[in-house]
């Protein structure tokens, strides 16, 4: 069997990551915006903090504001930065441009439908220059439609790609990014979620838990499983250990493991598979201990670091021949 060109595999893996990152950035920004709108009348300071939280969920992101920005200013600048700034390397526009660059490098490995949809999405975002002068309503509307476009691209991939190594690497990039984003979100949101409820404003508290679930596209899935009862521990367990919701860490890592196994059918265990096996085994057998631990947010951060190490191992094994 002829393997895939290592450079092409790397590009297609990153294409998967960047597409997922773009959709995550759009989705999480949308959710934080809605949450900020929802609570601004109840707790204006918290509404500002929501935007600071967003930057914590995307470490390395840049939002240019004055020293003590008003809520309107930080809202507008955050929307602008996470939607269309090319200075913010975690913005939707930056991620789509990067995905499109990866796609252009390995265009021969993609289907025409995929490239055209991705190119259209990139060109649309590129047309929103700082001079375009979009207002907040327009940016909100674009965030929604861009998510639909990204789903369209991901749909084209699922519908048209050959079921081969290329798709495996693309999916690996995608689930790796998804697991990482869920863990970062949990590490930022868990401290307030697990704080004592007698010390907080309950409507705001539950709005924030709902937003956290929506930010990882899991609110409806959670309700289907557990009803409307937003018990914080149950939410944490759901996002870490649920076996069906696609953004749970368990599902992402299980899929990653399956892809790695499929790449190496019949071959001895590879280093990334071994590393991932250790992480998933720990999650499998130590679920109760993990959830009972006092620093679950720190555990999530540590898991995010472990996942990055698996990424490095994949890179060394498959992309650096």
């Amino acid at each position, binding site marked *: *069997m*002829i*393997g*895939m*060109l*290592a*450079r*092409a*595999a790397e590009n297609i893996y990153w294409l998967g990551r960047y597409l997922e990152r773009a959709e995550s950035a759009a989705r999480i920004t949308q959710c934080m915006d809605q949450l900020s709108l929802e609570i601004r009348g109840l707790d204006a300071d918290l509404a500002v903090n929501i935007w600071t939280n967003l930057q914590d969920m995307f470490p390395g992101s840049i939002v240019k504001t004055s020293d003590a920005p008003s809520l309107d200013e930080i809202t507008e600048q955050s929307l602008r930065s996470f939607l269309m700034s090319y200075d913010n390397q975690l913005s939707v526009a930056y991620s789509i441009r990067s995905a499109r*660059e990866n796609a*252009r*490098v*390995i*265009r*021969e*490995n*993609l289907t*025409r439908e995929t*490239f*055209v949809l991705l*190119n*259209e999405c990139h*060109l649309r975002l590129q047309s929103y220059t700082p001079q375009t002068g979009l207002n907040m309503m327009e940016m909100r509307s674009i965030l929604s439609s861009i998510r639909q476009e990204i789903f369209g691209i991901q749909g084209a991939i699922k519908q048209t790609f050959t079921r081969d*190594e290329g798709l495996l*690497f693309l999916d690996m990039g995608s689930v790796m990014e998804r697991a990482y984003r869920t863990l970062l979100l949990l590490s930022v949101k868990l401290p307030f979620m697990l704080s004592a409820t007698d010390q907080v404003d309950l409507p705001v508290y539950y709005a924030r838990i709902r937003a956290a679930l929506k930010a990882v596209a899991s609110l409806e899935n959670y309700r289907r499983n557990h009803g409307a009862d937003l018990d914080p521990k149950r939410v944490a367990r759901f996002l870490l250990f649920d076996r069906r919701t696609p953004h749970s860490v368990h599902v992402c890592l299980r899929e990653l493991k399956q892809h790695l196994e499929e*790449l190496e059918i019949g071959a001895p265990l590879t280093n990334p598979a071994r590393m991932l096996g250790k992480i998933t085994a720990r999650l499998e057998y130590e679920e109760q201990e993990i959830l009972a631990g006092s620093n679950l947010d720190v555990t999530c951060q540590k898991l995010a670091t472990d996942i990055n190490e698996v990424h490095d191992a994949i890179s060394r094994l*498959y*992309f650096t*021949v």
Partner: protein
Amino acid sequence: MDWQHASQGFDEAFTSDGAARALYEELIGTFNGMSEAEIVRREKLQEMSLVNQGITFTVYGKEEGVERVFPFDFVPRIISGRDWSMVERGIVQRVTAINMYLEDLYSEQHCLREGIMPQELVFGSEDFRRELIGTRPRHGIYTHIVGTDLLRDDDGGFLVLEDNCRNPSGVSYVLENRNLLFRVFPELFNRYAVRQVERYPQMLLEALRHSAPRGRETPVVAVLTPGIYNSAYFEHSFLAREMGVPLVEGRDLIVEDDQVFMRTTRGKQRVDVIYRRIDDIYLDPVVFDMNSMLGVPGLMHAYRCGNVAIANAPGSGVADNKSIYPYVPDLIRFYLDEEIILPQVHTWIGRREDDRRYISEHLSELVVKLCGGAGGYGMLVGPAASKKEIEEFRVQFESKPEDYIAQPLVEFSHHPTYTGDGFAPRRVDLRPFVLYGDGIKVLPGGLTRVAMEEGSYVVNSSQGGGSKDTWILAEQDS
């Protein structure tokens, strides 16, 4: 809609009294049956389609890697089956002779010994690869892919302007233009039996596989590109995708035990045929340019050992150096004992003292070209140049006259082209593509390049030219 016809040169669609030629009557009638608004709408659709599909080329200049859309004019060019048959025969003759010349040059060198080709022209050429004397590619084929540039003279006869035997580009636009026209103006095809061009990738793959080293039953083919910033990257990627083969860069390849491997997710995999889209000098830093970051160390040794085929074969460029062009009729006589089928343009050679003087004295009347140049770079179109441009060019020319050739300004034929407010004549040339595998095959079509600006002679994509779909009609309809 308003149709203007050309006041000078051959107008391919209209006679001198303004009547539509028989080949074009149906086409013009179809456009005339559409409202102006409909044509504008479809042109917008076509532009949008080119942008969204990323059918681009990269422009070299201030900003590295700026992508531009290659403008497409939707009025197709029609060539009758009878005319094409002559073009086809002429090109096959030319490519046959050029290959025999290359094989001879890198072996016995009869053409030099018998004075058919001046020795200084060959040995003084930077495209001649001394290192490859005695290395014969499989089947003796050097030019697996050739693009021959043609013009039509004042009577509509075809003239050869130049041969491109290194890395002729543009075939991706031939295929994409056809796709685009099918989608945007499907009704144009109703009354014409247009020969298909879609088989090109399959034909190319067959030709490449034919060149594979002996004993390799299912040869692995790869397209070698300089990378994403190359002007023709879209085409490299397009051809790899259409053939279903990997697109590799130099850094993806490695030579071990005189064999070429690519770095894959499953370790090293052998490569048998490389369709290279990089120039000879960048192929292997061990043999050619030691600073090349694009090539593969050891590649030429693997090639000389017969373990990998390279298309076009290294050293082929010596046949398309513009100073060789005037000798092609002699080569055809020498190797084939035939007279040239497709005539060519009279050419003065800078290295001949008489010619040099003539060129220098007539710069304002001539088209002067750099022998190893391509893409319209390093070229002077005398009649269209300002005095200042001519004087600046004179300095370049006089410093190295042996690097130049000159030709009279041949009037290009004109073809109706949509200008945004009607159809006006614009100058066109034609690049048919030829594949040499198990026989020589000419793609029934080609890249028609068009000078989009009124009065312009510049058809190169890099300098504002556009392209058209080229229809070769099946014999019965011609």
